[in-house]
């Protein structure tokens, strides 16, 4: 059945994951014995105070860092380094300044050996999806911050990953652009049905976009908590249940 297939695709399992860093001779346990199951097609947000290890967790999932202990399974297979079934959207757009928007979006496919013509055809589709069709031949330095980040998103989507990893993708944008981009991300997620793991420090963004929110605690001993966001989509920020959810999440961090 196709249902089985779709739920299998893009499944992430984290088992007993531990990761520490040595800073000035001191050992810092960033992540300890973390368990996590993310279903295919789910949107998970990871929130927590700075230094709680949320970006580290994402980098381990991406294969950019290897864990000290434990493992990450994707669709049942252990992760070894970066893989083509995952795509990462960084906080900065990380566009190649010498390529046009089209060249940048096609870049991910081209480096995997797809022919330029085919890569560009697929790139055009996603450039349209993020609403930049008119800017195909623009260079990155001609784009505003929000537009550049959309190019980064289109580039990640073009390789059609099973799992999309986002590391505070809207963190550097101004408040207005941020709201627009959150709506855009919600729409893209709805259309693409890709497993999404989003690191953010914005609690409202987490509730707006995610099915579940993983709260990483400030104290290293405490256990992480998973909160299910049981709200219908598209979500309304002024909905009393949304507001209540935000209050609950803020309470997790001792905020009023």
């Amino acid at each position, binding site marked *: 059945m196709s249902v089985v297939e779709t739920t299998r695709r893009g499944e992430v399992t984290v088992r007993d994951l531990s990761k520490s860093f040595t800073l000035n001779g001191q050992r810092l346990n960033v992540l300890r014995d973390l368990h996590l199951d993310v279903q295919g097609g789910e949107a998970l947000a990871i929130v927590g105070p700075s230094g709680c290890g949320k970006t580290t967790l994402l980098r381990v999932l991406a*294969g*950019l860092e290897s864990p000290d202990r434990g493992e990450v399974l994707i669709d049942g297979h252990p992760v070894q380094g970066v893989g083509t079934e995952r795509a990462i959207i960084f906080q900065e757009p*990380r566009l190649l300044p010498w390529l046009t928007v089209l060249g940048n979006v096609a870049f991910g496919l081209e480096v995997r050996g797809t022919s330029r013509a085919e890569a560009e055809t697929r790139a055009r589709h996603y450039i349209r999806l993020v609403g930049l069709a008119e800017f195909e031949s623009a260079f990155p330095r001609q784009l505003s911050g929000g537009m550049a980040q959309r190019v980064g998103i289109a580039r990640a989507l073009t390789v059609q990953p099973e799992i999309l990893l986002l590391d505070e993708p809207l963190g550097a944008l101004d408040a207005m652009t941020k709201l627009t981009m959150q709506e855009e991300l919600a729409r893209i997620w709805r259309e693409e049905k890709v497993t999404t793991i989003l690191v953010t420090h914005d609690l409202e963004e987490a509730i707006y976009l995610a099915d579940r929110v993983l709260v990483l605690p400030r104290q290293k001993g405490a256990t992480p908590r998973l909160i299910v966001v049981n709200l219908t989509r598209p979500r309304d920020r002024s909905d009393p249940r949304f507001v209540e959810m935000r209050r609950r999440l803020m309470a997790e961090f001792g905020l009023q």
Partner: protein
Amino acid sequence: MTFQSLGSSPTVSVEAPSGAALLRRGVAGAGRALRRYGLLFGFLAFWQVGSSLGWINPTVFPPLDKILAATWAGVVGGAFLDDIAISLQRSGLAFAAAVGLGIPLGLFMGQIRAVEQALDPILQFFRQTSALALYPVFILLLGLGEASKVFVIFWATLFPILLATIGGVKEVDRKLIEMAATFGASRATIFRRVVQPASVPSIFVGLRLSATTALLLLVAAEMIGANRGLGFQVMNAQYNFQIPQMFAAILLLAALGLTANALLVTLQRRLCRWADLSH
């Protein structure tokens, strides 16, 4: 959302401009030219007038018209053509060799840390050793002919290119390399698609520096042991007290330098359309 278009000028009205508008534009253009070249023209005018009226010694600084006449006679009459050709050949060969060796070697050295670390001290040592001080060594090794002249220019032009290329490769944004790696790009692909294009602006800095150095060393090498070439003509004219000819040769050398720089700037504009060229 903002979108600034590349190299677009302010919108120009389609209707034919009125006489007053044309005049205004002409005045504005003249003002720009005056700001940029006014001082140069003032200097040249002072030279011409001062030399003609005897404010400055006309035997050392002949009037400009005499220098220009000597230049014209040298180029059109053919007396300097041979010298220009041999000078171009020497500096061109040396520069081409420096580019041919410096860029590939620099790209390689910048990539591989161990190689760069092992070669850096010796590079710094050679770089700080004046090429002119080594010229006698090259003459001993290669004789007083063309080989030693080309080699001393090559030697001096190699280092700016090499060091600029290494610097360019080392300063490529790690985040861009990481981005390419997350898309599954191999090391070779990252080198070709990210590292190489990213180091082009830095390489051009080296190329322009090297072009200037090439002409500097050309003159020095031709003054020491040559019987042809523009550098030789400067010396020779001075010995024979043909001061206008001396300045004519100097003028031609300056023109050569300006042309080389202009060519490189044009090439850079074409290759680095994406980078900000305002500086």
